């Protein structure tokens, strides 16, 4: 995978903006189709918000490393964090399609990550969760 771009954010939800801006710019630089870029944004948001909201037990600042890379057919985003071991896709989807009174309010990010990306890979290595997600484009 070529054309690598890296950034680091801290585990605060306000940092999502930095990720959005960087990904937006990266997609523009590589002429990624707007709809594909939008779906990648959504997958990235769901993944990083999961890390920030559920990954840490303490109230300290942690760093999350994010790397973008792409070739002619595919764009990949890799998230690396030192939160507790956690694979977001190991969770079951909440029950979907329920009427509003019964509908699950949480966990909706998981089906979105699954359906809006083409490949996902998780490993826990040297004290880090490493989650890579890829999306193909025409």
């Amino acid at each position, binding site marked *: 995978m070529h054309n690598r771009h890296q950034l680091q954010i801290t585990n605060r939800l306000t940092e999502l903006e930095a990720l959005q801006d960087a990904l937006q710019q990266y997609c523009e630089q590589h002429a990624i189709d707007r709809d594909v870029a*939008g779906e990648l944004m959504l997958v990235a948001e769901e993944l990083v918000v999961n890390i920030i909201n559920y990954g840490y037990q303490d109230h300290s600042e942690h760093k999350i490393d994010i790397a973008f890379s792409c070739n002619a057919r595919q764009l990949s985003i890799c998230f690396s964090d030192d939160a507790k071991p956690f694979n977001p896709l190991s969770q079951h989807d909440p029950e979907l*399609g329920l*009427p509003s009174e019964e509908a699950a309010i949480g966990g909706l990010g998981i089906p979105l990550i699954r359906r809006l990306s083409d490949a996902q890979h998780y490993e826990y290595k040297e004290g880090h969760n490493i989650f890579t997600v890829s999306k193909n484009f025409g």
Partner: protein
Amino acid sequence: MSLTIKIKAEQGASKRVSLNGRLDTITAPELEAELDTLVSEPVQLVVFDMTDLEYISSAGLRVIFKATKAMKAKGGKTGILKMQPQIKKVFDIVKALPDVPIFKNDDEMDDYLNHMQQQVLDDQ
């Protein structure tokens, strides 16, 4: 991109909440606060006008779900006016709110509001 929220009274005890921009983890709390207030008012139908909504994430869905539940709990309803294709795709993936009416245009919404008004009159 951020979120602009406009709330406008419609016929009957209805309100149109127009969402312009992105409804994501950062902008969702602002909408949540507005909706918490709105739902506590004497409103029967809250229609989310998504004509100019470009992006929605699970944080945004959560706020819409929450408002829908709250409206239902007080005997009211929510509706959605116009979803852009990428927004509809997100709703379809999570099979969101099958019981919430989606209006393709203002005429459909007005028909629904008229029908609601008529039902209120008929019940009186």
